[in-house]
C-alpha cells in the first residue's frame, strides 16, 4: 500500500521517531500535516504576538498573526493588554487593515459595527431602527478574545481557555531561565517596525534550525571565516546545547577570551535582573540562538569587531505559516532600552547586515529552506519514506553540573533539541501527552 492512501495521523505515528533520530521528509511540506498543525499547534499553544515596548501608550495596537489568523494586540484605555481576533462579529470583516495605530475603538468599514479597544461592542449605525426595539446584545457581540500573558517583555496569546491548557510559565518551562538572559536581562525595546518577507519554505524548517542547528554554520555560513571575521570556521562549536522540552537553544561561549562582550554601561541593570549563575553565563556569551516552540526564534549573532568594538545585533523572529510550503518571516531588532547609543546604532547595523531580509547569513538560509521544502513536496507521494537523520549527539551524556535547567550538553554540535522539538510536535499533532 502506498502512503498516499493512508490517513496522515497513521503515517505520522508510524514514521516519526524522534527518540531514534528519524524524521520522514514528507512532513516538511505536507498539506494534511499542515492542517493538523494549524488546528492542534497554532490553535492551541501559546504564540508570541508582540513585545511590551510596542504597546506602551493606552490605545496602542499592532496587528499580528496567530497561525493564519489575523489578531489585534491592543492596550485598552484601562491599561490592560488584550488580544482579539481581527474580525467583526457581524460579517467577519477585518476591523483594521493597518499594521499599527492608536485608537479607542475600531469601526468596521463594512456596516459600521464599532468595538472599544477593550473588546466591548459599542453599537452600530441606526441600531434601534435596524434591530428594534432595543438594539443588539452588547455582551454577546464582544470581540473574540485570546488568552494573553507575558514573560520577560514578550507577549504571548493562546486560543485555549483558562484551565484548558498550561499557563504561560508552565508552557515556557525550562526556557524561562534562558529567556531571562536573552530578553529579560534589561528593559528591552523593539526598534522600528518588523521587516517582513515571504519565503517559499515550511515555517518549521527555520524554527527547528534556530532551536537546534549550530552545526550548519560551518558550511552554510562559511563565508564568515573565509572573510576573516571569525577565527575559524567552527565558530559555532564551543558552548552548550539545550533541550528545553520542545524549546531549544544553543549558546556559544568565549572561554578562550575572558571578559564580558556586553557593554559595561548596562552591567548594573543586568546584575539587578539576573541571578549570579545567569550573569556569569552572560559574561561568557559570544552567540546565542534558540526557538520557543513552535515559531518564535531569537538570536544574538556571533560578536564581531566593528570600529574597534565588539558588536552584535539582537533579533526576534517569527515564522508565520502561510501554507505547507510558504511562510512569512517577521524580524525585529531588539535592544536594551537604556543602552549607550553606539550599542544601539552599531547593533542595528550589524543586525541588518547579517540577519535580515538582506542579511548575509539569512540569504543563505532561505536558499536552503526553499530547496528542502521543494524536495519534501516531491517526496510526499513516494511509496517508501525518505527518512532523514537527526542522530547527532544521540548518545551524548548531558552535563550534571550546569546551573541552568533543561537537558544541557557540552558543545553546540547536537540535534537533541531538534529531536525534542519533533517529540513535542508529534504529541500535539496526535493529541497525545508526553
Amino acid at each position, binding site marked *: 500500500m502506498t502512503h498516499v492512501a493512508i490517513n496522515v495521523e497513521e503515517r505520522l505515528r508510524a514514521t516519526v521517531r524522534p527518540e531514534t533520530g528519524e524524521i520522514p521528509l514528507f512532513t516538511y511540506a505536507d498539506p494534511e500535516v499542515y492542517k493538523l498543525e494549524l488546528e492542534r499547534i497554532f490553535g492551541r499553544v501559546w504564540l508570541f504576538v508582540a513585545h511590551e515596548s510596542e504597546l506602551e501608550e493606552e490605545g496602542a495596537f499592532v496587528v499580528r498573526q496567530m497561525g493564519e489568523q489575523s489578531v489585534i494586540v491592543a492596550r485598552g484605555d484601562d491599561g490592560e493588554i488584550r488580544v482579539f481576533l481581527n474580525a467583526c462579529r457581524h460579517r467577519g470583516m477585518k476591523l483594521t*487593515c493597518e499594521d*499599527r495605530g492608536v485608537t479607542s475603538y475600531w469601526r468596521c468599514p463594512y456596516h459600521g459595527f464599532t468595538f472599544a479597544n477593550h473588546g466591548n461592542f459599542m453599537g452600530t449605525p441606526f441600531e434601534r431602527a435596524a434591530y428594534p426595539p432595543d438594539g443588539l446584545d452588547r455582551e454577546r457581540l464582544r470581540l473574540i478574545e485570546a488568552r494573553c500573558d507575558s514573560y520577560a517583555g514578550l507577549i504571548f496569546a493562546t486560543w485555549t481557555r483558562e484551565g484548558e491548557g498550561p499557563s504561560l510559565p508552565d508552557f515556557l518551562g525550562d526556557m524561562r531561565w534562558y529567556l531571562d538572559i536573552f530578553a529579560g536581562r534589561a528593559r528591552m525595546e523593539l*526598534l*522600528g*517596525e518588523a521587516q517582513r*518577507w515571504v519565503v517559499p519554505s515550511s515555517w518549521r524548517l527555520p524554527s527547528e534550525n534556530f532551536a537546534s542547528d549550530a552545526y550548519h554554520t560551518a558550511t*552554510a555560513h562559511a563565508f564568515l571565516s573565509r572573510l576573516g571575521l571569525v577565527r575559524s570556521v567552527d565558530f559555532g562549536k564551543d558552548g552548550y546545547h539545550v533541550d528545553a522540552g520542545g524549546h531549544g537553544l544553543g549558546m556559544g561561549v568565549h572561554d578562550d577570551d575572558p571578559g564580558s562582550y556586553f557593554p559595561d554601561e548596562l552591567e548594573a541593570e543586568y546584575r539587578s535582573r539576573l541571578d549570579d549563575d545567569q550573569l556569569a553565563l552572560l559574561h561568557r556569551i559570544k552567540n546565542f540562538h534558540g526557538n520557543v516552540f513552535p515559531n518564535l526564534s531569537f538570536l544574538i549573532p556571533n560578536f564581531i569587531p566593528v570600529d574597534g568594538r565588539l558588536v552584535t545585533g539582537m533579533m526576534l523572529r517569527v515564522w508565520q505559516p502561510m501554507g505547507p510550503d510558504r511562510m512569512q518571516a517577521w524580524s525585529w531588532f531588539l535592544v536594551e532600552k537604556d543602552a549607550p547609543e553606539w550599542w544601539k546604532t552599531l547593533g542595528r547595523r550589524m543586525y*541588518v547586515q547579517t540577519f535580515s*531580509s538582506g*542579511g548575509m547569513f539569512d540569504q543563505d538560509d532561505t536558499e536552503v529552506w526553499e530547496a528542502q521544502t521543494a524536495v519534501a513536496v516531491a517526496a510526499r507521494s513516494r511509496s517508501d519514506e525518505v527518512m532523514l537523520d537527526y542522530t547527532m549527539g544521540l548518545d551524548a551524556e548531558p552535563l550534571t553540573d550546569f546551573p541552568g535547567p533543561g537537558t544541557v550538553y557540552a558543545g553546540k554540535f547536537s540535534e537533541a533539541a531538534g529531536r525534542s522539538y519533533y517529540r513535542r510536535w508529534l504529541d500535539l499533532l496526535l493529541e497525545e501527552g508526553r
Partner: protein
Amino acid sequence: MSAGSIWVLPAEAVSPAARLAAEDFLIAEAAMLDERRFDEWIELFTDDVEYIVPVRTIRRVGNGSDIDWESRHYDDNKASLSLRVRRLSTDVAWSEDPPSFTRRVLGNFRYTPGPAATELTVKTNLLLFRSRGTTGDHDLIAGERTDVLRLVEGELKIAKRHVVLDQAMLGTKNLGVFL
C-alpha cells in the same frame, strides 16, 4: 510672452549635459549589476556612501508615514558593501551561486541640483526582475531610488542611495541582490 519662452529652463534646473551624464552613469551602473561586475561596481561609490533601504508599513491615511527609516532592509556603508562584494566572490555565497538572473530597468528620471555644489540628486523608478532556479517563476522588486551623485576628480560617484521599496511584505525570499 513669446512662443519659445516656455522652453527656457528655470535657473536652478540641471543642464541637459549633466542630466545626460547622470542618466548614462546610472544605466551603466545597472548593467554592471546585471552582469555581476561587482568589483567595478563597488568603485562607483564614494568612501562616505550611505546605502539605506527603509521598511514600508501599512498605515491608514493620516496615521503617519508608511516609511519607517528606523527599520531597514539595508543599512550599509562602503565597508559593508565591500564586504558583501567580497562575500559574493567566495565559493560559499550560496544565496547567489548559482546566481539569479536579474534585469534592472530604470525610468522616470527626475533631477535636482545639490545638495552640495558638486552634487546632483536623481530620483528614478526601479524595476528589478529576478529569476532563480527552474520553476519558471520570477520576483519583481519595485521601488524608488534617490541617488546623490557627486563629481569626484572628474568622475561621477554615488554618495548616497536610498531605495523605498513598494512592498510592506517583500515578495522575494531574500534581498541577496543589490538594489
